[in-house]
Structure formats: C-alpha cells, structure tokens
C-alpha cells in the first residue's frame, strides 16, 4: 500500500514540473499585447436614484485582439464613464471606448484611440485547447508597468454561473494559483493563450475559454451584435423511476432531464412546457442531470449548447411529451437583464424613478434589494423578494416592471403617509400599472378628479395626492430634499 501511494505521488507531481520546464517565458513577447486598463465610473444611489454615487476607479487587465482592439471582462466596465489604457514601457494613457460589451457573458471589446498609439498592438490569438492537469501561465501588465507571470493548474471545465450575471457559461477552473489573479489576465497553455480570467479565490481561478472568446469576437466583428442563447426554462434531474413510469417513458429511454418550469423569455420559452423531458439538443443526448458528453470536456451542462448558439439561430430539441417522443425547433433567444421583470442589474443605465408630492416611486431591481445588506435574500420583505425569486424571468405584456412606493419624503402635504414604503403599486388613477412610464401616462387619466389615487398590493392603504397643490408640493420637495429632477424614465 505504501509503495503504491509513493509512486502515485511521484506521478502526480512530475508531469506539471516537466511541463513547466517545457514552457517558454512569454513576458517579452507579451509586451506589445497586454495593456493595463483604468476604468472610472459612477452608478446611481438606489434609494436616492437622482444622485450619482462617487466616482470609482478600478484597474483591469486587457489583451490585444486587434491592432487597436483590446479584450477584457465586462464586470469592471460596468457603469464606466471613462476608460484608459496604458501599454508596456509607456507612461501616457490611451483613451479607449467600449465597442461591444456583453454583461451576460462577461466579455468586453474595447477600441483604443489609434492616434494615441505610436505602433499598433500585437494581437493575441486565443486557441481552443484543454489539457486537464496541465500547468497554465498567466501574464498581465501591472499597474506599476511590469509584466508579471503566475502559474496555476488546469483542473476542470464546467458550466457555472457567470460571476457577474444570471447566465450559466462554460468556464475552466484552475487550482493552486501561485498568486492572486485579476479579471482579464490571459492564461497560456504551451505558450498559447487559451482563456482569460473572470474570477478568482485563494484556491481557484475561473477562465473564460478560448471558444467563448472567439465566438464573441466573431459576433462582435459582424454588427449588429446579437448575443448568445440563454436558457428560458428550469430543469430538475430525472432519476426517479416512479416519475419515468408515471410519464410513460419506455424502459429503453434512460436519459433526459425534466422541465420544471418555463419562463416568458429566453431559449425554449415559447416552445417548451413544464413537464416536458428534454432528451437531446442538436443530437446531444442529455443525461438525467441535464449534462451531455462533450468531446473535450467529458460531461458538462446542457446550458453550454445553448450558450454556443447565436440569438436567432434554431436548435432541435428532442423531447418526450404526453407519452411520446417528438422534435421541436427552438429559436435561440438571449435574455437582457433590463428586460427581466426584476432586472438582475442595470449596468450603464440610470434607475427609473418618479417623485410625486414627495412619494418616491421606483422600479424593483436586484440592486435595489441588495440595499438590505449581507444576507439580503433573507431580509428583504418577502412580498418584494418573491417577485425576484419566482417571477424575475417572467415579464408579460401586462406587467414588465414591478413599481413600488419606495418611501415618502415627508412634507405637510403627505402627512399621515410618512411611514409608508416598500409597497407594490397595483393601480394609479384606476389604471393597472405595468411599468413606471405608464404611471406618468396615468397621471392624466382622471382629469375631473381632484386627486391622484394610488392603490397597492396586500392590505395597504390608498394613497391620495391632491392635484391642486401638487406643483407647489413638488417644488417644495425639490428645494427641501435637493432633488433637481423629479423623474427619470428610460426613453428606451
């Protein structure tokens, strides 16, 4: 037993060491390909959406993918106002602009100001390679102007949630990094770039693999950018023989994953129904956990099949429905956060709000709920959280936003209502409210009435706002609370 253990340790250790010795140091050739990015941005305060937060500047790492084009992750670019790049051995900053950004897939293509560059960058070519257990080397241009190098071990490929969005994507997971890794660092295998870091912890690093990067770049070079597929349904495993028998699935069909619910957006939202069993997607058989056998990564989640497809393409789902197999053509759709009933994020967008007579109306977003702090999921009032948890991906024509009375800015005119807040608006002047812009329209709905009348969900009181004194009250609110604009409604 002991001998076997010793031998296996030696085997486990030797290959990486040998591989490490076989790898060149790319620090010098990388000098014309790596940039250090400085991103300054400001978002908006969630509870006072008329106020911007302070300017926040973060650093990131960029990799040339064209003479004047740089690839990085989307996360650091959120709410960016100014983006600047610095090259190796050059002190001056080069202005950059966002050419294409995809927050769902966490990738961003920047274009540098060519007139500020003496020489073009040397593009890196990302190569589809995966070698489980191999050592990878990362390179980045530090804030201090040095190119630094680190090592980590390529452990596995898996489909997991993107660190900045609600979409599951393919990621390589590296273990035992030799130093902390920053978003955007390029990782190389056998001297060839195979991915870009998108998250890291003390023990692990996540990479966006070359195949996702190249797909994004191809898409970005052919405007309009259409994005990639996002899953429009939820699944659960189909292990229970009793369920298979109940569904009248033949014994020979031992694969397939169960569809538990279907959204109103995303891939499959129009074609699937809950209770379907997905047997295969584009001829890839799904096992009862929803994984398929990938030639390079072995078993990975079916979400990758959908994420590989461009929005607008068609995929073939083989499903089991009502006791028989059938094929369904499914249109690939992506999901934009701003289209969700409760947006996961609103990067680069101002939050909508409407202040009427001191009553502050806002749309419910995930960012709004995170104001409850750590563990917010257990602390947010459940009547708000349930819209996020149960209905976030189910907007309808009748309801595209959840509008809430966030709180009341106290004045004499809204006396009696000062303690109200966190109430979901049901109707305004008798009109069922679909979105915040509809509230603006509804203000003119009852011209004869001396009041605007707001009704809420749950056992809440009615809010009555006198129209005659409203201009004066609004002016007072402006002055008292320093609000320059009493409303912001997204024109889009």
């Amino acid at each position: 037993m002991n001998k076997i253990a010793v031998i296996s340790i030696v085997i486990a250790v030797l290959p990486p060491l040998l591989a490490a010795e076989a790898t060149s140091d790319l620090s010098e050739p990388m000098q014309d390909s790596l940039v250090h990015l400085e991103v300054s941005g400001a978002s908006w305060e969630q509870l006072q959406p008329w106020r911007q937060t302070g300017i926040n500047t973060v650093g990131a790492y960029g990799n040339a993918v064209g003479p004047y084009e740089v690839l990085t992750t989307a996360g650091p670019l959120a709410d960016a106002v100014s983006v600047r790049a610095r090259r190796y051995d050059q002190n001056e900053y080069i202005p950059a602009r966002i050419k294409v950004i995809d927050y769902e897939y966490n990738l961003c293509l920047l274009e540098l100001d060519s007139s500020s560059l003496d020489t073009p960058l040397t593009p890196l070519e990302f190569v589809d390679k995966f070698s489980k257990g191999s050592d990878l080397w990362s390179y980045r241009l530090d804030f201090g102007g040095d190119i630094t190098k680190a090592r980590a071990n390529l452990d596995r490929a898996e489909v997991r949630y993107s660190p900045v969005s609600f979409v599951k994507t393919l990621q390589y997971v590296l273990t035992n990094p030799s130093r902390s890794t920053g978003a955007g660092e390029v990782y190389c295998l056998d001297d060839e770039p195979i991915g870009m870091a998108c998250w890291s912890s003390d023990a692990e690093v996540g990479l966006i693999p070359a195949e996702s990067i190249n797909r994004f770049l191809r898409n970005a070079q052919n405007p309009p950018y259409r994005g990639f597929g996002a899953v429009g349904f939820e699944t659960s495993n189909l292990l229970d023989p009793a369920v298979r028998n109940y569904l009248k699935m033949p014994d020979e069909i031992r694969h397939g994953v169960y569809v538990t619910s279907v959204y109103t957006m995303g891939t499959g939202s129009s074609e699937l129904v809950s209770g379907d069993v997905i047997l295969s997607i584009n001829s890839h058989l799904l096992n009862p956990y929803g994984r398929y056998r990938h030639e390079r990564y072995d078993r990975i989640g079916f979400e990758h099949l959908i994420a590989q497809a461009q929005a607008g393409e068609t995929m073939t789902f083989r499903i089991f429905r009502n006791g028989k197999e059938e094929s369904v053509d499914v249109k690939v759709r992506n999901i934009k956060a701003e289209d969700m009933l409760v947006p996961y994020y609103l990067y680069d967008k101002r939050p909508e709000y409407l202040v009427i007579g001191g009553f502050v109306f806002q749309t419910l977003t995930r960012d709004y709920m995170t104001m409850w702090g750590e563990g917010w999921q257990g602390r947010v009032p459940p009547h708000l959280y349930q819209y996020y948890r149960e209905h976030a991906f189910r907007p309808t024509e009748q309801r595209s936003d959840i509008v809430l009375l966030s709180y009341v800015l106290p004045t004499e005119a809204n006396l009696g209502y000062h303690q109200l807040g966190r109430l979901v608006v049901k109707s305004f002047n008798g009109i069922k409210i679909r979105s915040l812009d509809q509230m603006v329209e509804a203000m003119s709905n009852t011209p004869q009435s001396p009041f605007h009348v707001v009704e809420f969900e749950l056992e809440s009181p009615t809010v009555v706002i006198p129209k005659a004194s409203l201009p004066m009250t609004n002016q007072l609110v402006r002055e008292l609370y320093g609000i320059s604009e009493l409303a912001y409604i997204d024109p889009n």
Partner: protein
Amino acid sequence: MTAFIKRNAAVLSAVLVAAAAICPAQTLRPDPDDPGTIADFLTTYEKSVAMIMTVRQDFDYVTPWKKLPMSRGVGTGFVIDGHRILTNAHNVANARYIEVIKQYEARRYPAKVEFVGHDCDLALLTVDDASFFNDTVPLSFGSLPQVNSTVHTCGFPVGGRQLSITEGVVSRIEYGTYSHTQAHTHIIVQTDAAINPGNSGGPVLQDGKVVGVAFQGLQSADNIGYMIPTTVIDHFLNDVKSGTYDGFGTTGFTTFDGLHNPAYKAYLGVPAEATGVVVTEVVRGGTAEGILQKGDVLTRIDDFNIDNDGMIRIYGLRLEYAEAIDRKQLGETVEIEFYRDGKPKTAKLQVALNAPVLAWARQYDQEPKYRIYAGLTFVTVSRNFLESWGRNWPSEIPFSLRYLFMHANYLIDDPNRREFVVISEILPDEVNAYAGGFKNQVVETVNGMAINALADLQLAFDTDIDGYWIVRFMNNDSPMIIDAQKARRGHDDLLRRYHVPTASN
C-alpha cells in the same frame, strides 16, 4: 398601520422573567383600608407568594412523535381567592410536573394547571393538598396604577431562594406585545423595579393590593420590566368563571392611521372635523366580514372617539382602540360608528377569536399533529414549526414559508383552507429516495384532491392515480410522484425501522 405595528412589535423580544422578596415576620394586617408599609403587607402575605418549580418538555414540530429534552424552570405565583394560585402561563407552559414551595417551608406541594391563558400569559393553579392554603391569605386586586407611582415587585428571582422584593415606579402604561406568544398585544405597565428571571408570575403591589403580575423585561435595556395590569387579569379571571378559558377576541379587521392627511379624508368623504382610522383589510370569515369593508373610516367604538392615531381615552389614559375590544369577552359586542362613501353608519361587531389560518402566535400545550405516508412526515405550518430553524428563523426559513408566514391571508385562494401542510421530515427509504427537493413546500393537492388541512390527507392518500400518488405543491409546477403500491407495502416496516409509534396522531 395596526397590522404592521403588531408585527414589528413582535420582533422586539421582551424577555420573560420573574421575582420574589424577603419579608421580615411581623403581625398580620389584613385591613384593606390601611395598607401600611410594604413590610407590614409582607408579614401578612409572605406565605401567599410561592415559588413555582416546573419540569417542562416542549414538543418537536418536525418529528412530532418525539419530544424535546426536558428542562426545569422557576417562577413565582400568589394565592388568590378560591384556593387558587395565579401565575404566568409561561411558567407552566408545556409543563410535565409542577410543584409549589412556600417561604420558610421545606415541603413541596404538587400542583396542577386549572386554567391557562397563553394569549395573556396568565394561569391558575390548584394544589391538591388543601393544607397548602392553611396559612395563606388571598391577595386582592387594585386598579391600574398611576404613572410615577411607587410599586413593589415580589417573587423568587435568580440569585437566592428567599422571597425578594424590589421597589420602583410605574414609568409607562401602553399597549405592547406579550412575548410569551410573540403575537398578542394588550396593555402593559412598565416599571423600573428590578424584574429578573424567576420574578415571572409574582405580584406587583401598591397600597397593599396587587396591581399587576410581573412577566417580562426588555433585554436591550437596563431596568425596564413589565407587568400585566389588572384590566387583563380581570378579563382572564372573569373568562374562567364559565369553567373554560376562551381567550381574548378581535373583531377581524386591520386599520391604518393615516387620516392626518386632509386630502385622504376628503377622498374618503369624511367630514373635516371627524377623526378615526381607515380599514385596510377585513379578515375572511371574520366577524367584520360583510359589515366593514376596505376604505371604511372607523370613528367611534363603544363610548370612545377614535383619534387619527387610532387611540381612545380610556381609564384616564390614551390607549389603542383595541382596548375597547380587549375588555370584552368572546361573544360580546362592540358598537362602532364609521363612514362609508361619506355616509355615517353604525354597526355592532361581535368579539370572536377570528383565528387566522396561519397563526402568528406561538402555541403551547397542544401536541402537534402529523401524518406519515411513504416515509414523508406531513405537519401543519405554525410559528412553532418555523421556530425549529433556530434563533434566526425569520431569515433562515425557506423563502416560500417566510412569504407564507407574512402574508398567509393574502395567499389563501380557497375559502376552505384551514391549515397549510408541508413535509417536515423524510424518513429515507427506497420509495421516497427522490423526494428530498419537496421538503418544506406547501402541499396543494394529493391525487387531485385539495389539501386544506392535515386531516384531508387521509382521504386523498386512500386513492391513487394509475398506481401513483401525485402530490402537487404551492408555486411549483413539478409534482412529486410516489409508487403507491410500494409505499403501502413498506409502510409498517418503515415505521418500525425508524421507531415511529404511529403513522398519525
């Protein structure tokens, strides 16, 4: 908004406590017109204040055929007329054994609970051995004390075994949450007389009479203790005269105190000079259903005008209008005046329990019900069940249960709903190997039959659909499917393996 106020108040955890006092022996002075000093009083009554020792064992709401470990507690009680001992309900809740001990006496007297009112945290005990009462003098009751007046708290707090007495003043008299159930609100009297664990159930004295029963303190503050006033004690003692304890009632509606706003008043058609509160919800099936409706403005209850804060002038104090209801026994009525669409109206409302489907109140002395099918333990959702998640249960329970607990009335779409049923525990077996994901979800139907109470399961599980039990859950499109024949076949063996005495209770 009354409903919101009640719920928020319930979160402030007052701590249940108790007290006692050392009394120098002096001559009897039972003259109620001359109360004398507190020392004189204690000379007469010290043997009427007893230590109550309880062995308690709470129920297990997840696996209800088991019970939690037992614990011991000490509190205080005092003798009142009719050879009875008045104490706090929380001293004797879930008690398996109770004994009372008198000052300067080694003997223990086993006692029994005659009546218990968990909603007002009061209980009456009896002692089988009548000799217990031989040298006791029943304490009598006074009225609500004045704010700033001096009171003495008597009892057996931690730190010693002899009767202890502490002096303080009445600081406030207002409405507050009774922490024993975490849900009921009545008048509470605040005092700075030290009230510590063990004081619970002890008399609070003024001018030789009991003006309250010490019962809880505020954990986050120094020297803030509370007593149950005689208005509540009287209600309890009058209630039990019928031979049963029925409890405090409500009239089944909630209100919002927003009529400070003249526009709101005008919108509701209420005269400018009128004051009151706006009805926001009428409890389905409650006694106000069909009488009041959302948007009504309640202006007067019995002889009391309601102000825009929802307060009335009563007992020389300004208290919530709920006191006008609290002072009534179940079945009695209150007369109300209200405006609807600008027109004044009057009505009578009967005071009733109006118990919600999912009670906010913590329950005691009621064995939780359960039923087991296919190794799945079905129980009803209650506060006690939710508290099994531990100290931080409000944020740690599954979201669907949190939403249900907060808004059960809003989520009920079937008027026949009497309980919410969930799977609390799974006894692992081949038949339920894949059922783990359905734990703690509210059952909607079994084999197509609505489950509006735990009792409905029996009939539903007697059926099957093509040999399967199909269980559907609230807000879940995915059913749980169980092989019914296999479940029936293995039922007895499964219970035997897990030492479950019966499949239901």
